């Protein structure tokens, strides 16, 4: 039985600009928004859009991601036919290869796609925070009788040269593609989400593979080749919330935006488009007498005795007496001991912040860095971690790191 459309989710990226946060896990597995991981967004979008078959292409540090995805049950993707499949590179009769590029990753899994004989394939990226209806995108693709469509966002003209840009005519047909140009002719940035007719995708992947000079990348090779051949290519306008959380500051910012859904446009609380995730299984959170909690998100298992303002706390975070947490993203299982001050920073999972330690600082005109503490680190009692710091090793008591 053929599937109309299946999804291929690119989750192999290292996310090197997230430094300490992605040392032991792939970027799509980075925790986000109190109880999610980044990959929950594209996966939930798939399920909410009616896509029940998803291939997840992994390569870099897949351990956490593999365990997290499991059989796909939290996303309702444990299916008899289809469902979620993790697809690492594998050895073939004729040798083996790592995924050389985004296009090569899909190429190496052509036989996976063919099992479902789809008409369309949607290529998704595992490092974006976005709530998007892929079914609406597919309807657009069909209406235009397109062979390839790409989801685009209007970005401010002054920032346009940071993006891959689609130049399109009045009918949204793409006439030109510019990769991070100095002089942008368009402000339609590609979101890296594509719908292909399967026959077209297969043809271009095979041709691209045969080209030894190719970098096997969708943006650099496949899309230019489609343009060269005058294929029917269309730009689908998306105007909801979309954020590439590829840097520490954008990840921090996106977490803060979750706290203000009325203005930021990212509404996790919408019952009609739930984001699913694997559950921590902890008991309800507890806020003690004397604690102050304002403008924050608190998750199951947290114990709050200190002050928490404008922060996102993941499952099982402990904030002890007289500790202050402000403008911070604190991931699961972290303990902030008595009197510690944690501000304007990202603290990864299972970190211990010692008594009276200081991590990060509120931004000033000259300094607005987001201090970052990696997974499992211990910051000693009375230590100081400056706003620009990126902590990958334990910091001893009283030590200062900037």
């Amino acid at each position, binding site marked *: 039985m053929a599937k109309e459309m299946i999804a291929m989710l690119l989750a192999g990226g290292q996310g090197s600009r997230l430094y300490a946060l992605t040392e032991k896990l792939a970027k799509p597995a980075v925790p986000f928004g109190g109880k999610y991981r980044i990959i929950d967004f594209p996966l939930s979008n798939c399920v909410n859009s009616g896509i029940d078959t998803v291939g997840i292409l992994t390569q870099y540090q897949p351990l956490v991601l593999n365990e997290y995805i499991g059989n796909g049950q939290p996303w309702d993707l444990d299916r008899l036919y289809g469902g979620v499949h993790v697809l690492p590179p594998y050895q073939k009769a004729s040798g083996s290869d790592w995924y050389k590029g985004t296009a090569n990753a899909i190429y190496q899994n052509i036989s996976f796609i063919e099992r479902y004989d789809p008409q369309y394939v949607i290529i998704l990226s595992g490092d974006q925070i976005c709530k998007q209806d892929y079914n609406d995108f597919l309807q657009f693709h069909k209406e235009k009788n397109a062979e390839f469509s790409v989801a685009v966002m209007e970005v401010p003209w002054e920032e346009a040269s940071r993006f891959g840009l689609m130049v399109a005519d009045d009918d949204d047909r793409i006439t030109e593609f510019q990769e991070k140009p100095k002089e942008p002719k368009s402000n339609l940035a590609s979101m890296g989400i594509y719908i292909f007719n399967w026959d077209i995708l297969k043809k271009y992947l095979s041709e691209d593979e045969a080209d030894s000079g190719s970098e096997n990348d969708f943006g650099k090779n496949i899309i230019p080749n489609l343009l060269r051949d005058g294929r029917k290519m269309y730009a689908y306008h998306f105007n909801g919330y979309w954020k590439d959380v590829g840097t520490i500051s954008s990840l921090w910012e996106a977490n803060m935006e979750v706290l203000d859904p009325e203005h930021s446009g990212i509404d996790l609380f919408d019952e009609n488009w739930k984001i699913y995730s694997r559950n921590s299984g902890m008991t309800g959170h507890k806020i003690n007498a004397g604690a102050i909690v304002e403008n*924050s998100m608190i*998750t199951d298992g947290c114990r709050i005795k200190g002050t928490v303002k404008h922060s996102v706390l993941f499952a099982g975070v402990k904030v002890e007496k007289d500790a202050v947490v402000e403008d911070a993203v604190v991931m699961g299982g972290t303990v902030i001991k008595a009197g510690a001050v944690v501000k304007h920073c990202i603290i990864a999972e299972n970190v211990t912040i010692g008594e009276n330690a200081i991590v990060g600082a509120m931004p000033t005109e000259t300094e607005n860095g987001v201090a970052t503490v990696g997974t499992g680190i211990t910051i000693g009692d009375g230590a100081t971690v400056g706003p620009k710091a990126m902590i990958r090793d334990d910091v001893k008591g009283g030590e200062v790191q900037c």
Partner: protein
Amino acid sequence: MLNTNMNALGIIFPNSYDVLVPDLVNVRMMASIPFASRYRLIDFILSSMSHCDIDNVCVMANNNYHSLMDHLGSGREWDLVRKNGGLNIFPPFAEKGNKPYSGRVDALASLLGFLRNQKEKYVVITDTNIVMNFDFNTMIKSHIESGADVTVAYNEQELPESLVQSKSNDKGFYYTFGIENGRITKIYVNPRETGVQNFSMNIYLLERELLIDLINTAFVRGQAYFERDVLLPNLNKLNVQAYKYDGYVARITNLKSYFDENMKLLDDYNLDSLFSGFPIYTKIRDDTPTRYIEGAKVQNIMVADGCLIEGEVENSILFRGVKIAKGAKVKNCILMQGTVVEAGANIEYLIADKNVLITAGKEMKGTDTFPIYIGKSNTI
């Protein structure tokens, strides 16, 4: 399993003591009463069993069991989806002339065919009105070491007033034990003694073959109650051992104790005592984290995920998806899943069942000794 002696099958009676909390079981049963901000009572016993590798569990649902079916589903959340065993729900077999189970003997008699075909050596029988994090393996070990025919768990506590003051037996039966050298020599039915007693937790452990024999005999004689009719007359013949449980125990014996046992968990010591053992599993609802808006004032509260809090909340337990609007005041309350408290409302000592709406500006106050209960889906 590596050690087949440790092999046990679980039988749970989810309707036991329903009569003690008529309000709370109006639309459900004891087992599915919400507790501790995100659980249902049965979660504690099911999770305990699951952690002790008791993965063949029978739930003898008698009536009002839709909420329980909905909650348990296939048993996945408790890791009880198995090819062999797993979670089985046994409602009364609807046949001409058949009635709901009249007692444990009746219910177990209907299960005899199933029991004969199982492989486990032991059977554990429990109710659901006790909240605990129970280690069945220790009990099984003690059973084997003592060479008992039957082992019964108890804890030392005073009898709850609600039971002692009950004028008749229509609130069901409860038991205390006389114990000599670990062996139960006397079973007191509905005693009214004051002071600390050996209070039965109604957790029974015995070999499956023995259970089948006992039930066969009792059923033929038309007997109804396992403790009164089966154990009590056989105390001379059977070696019935008492197993003392020292862990945290919260018994639900009436609406007041339901309120108190919830509130007790606001004390960190109690909370840690109950939850420091195995994790307790429950049905997943995929809520967001709870959101506290600027201006929210909260003190001493336990809150599940998915809540939205703008007002003032003190000494309270909030279940999943509760909304407290700006200017609302909530003190000493238990608000179950989906309760909405609108702006300016002021409530104290209230137990709001699921999806209750307290409209703007309403004031409603119970007292410490008499909390007000508001039924499911009501609007005030």
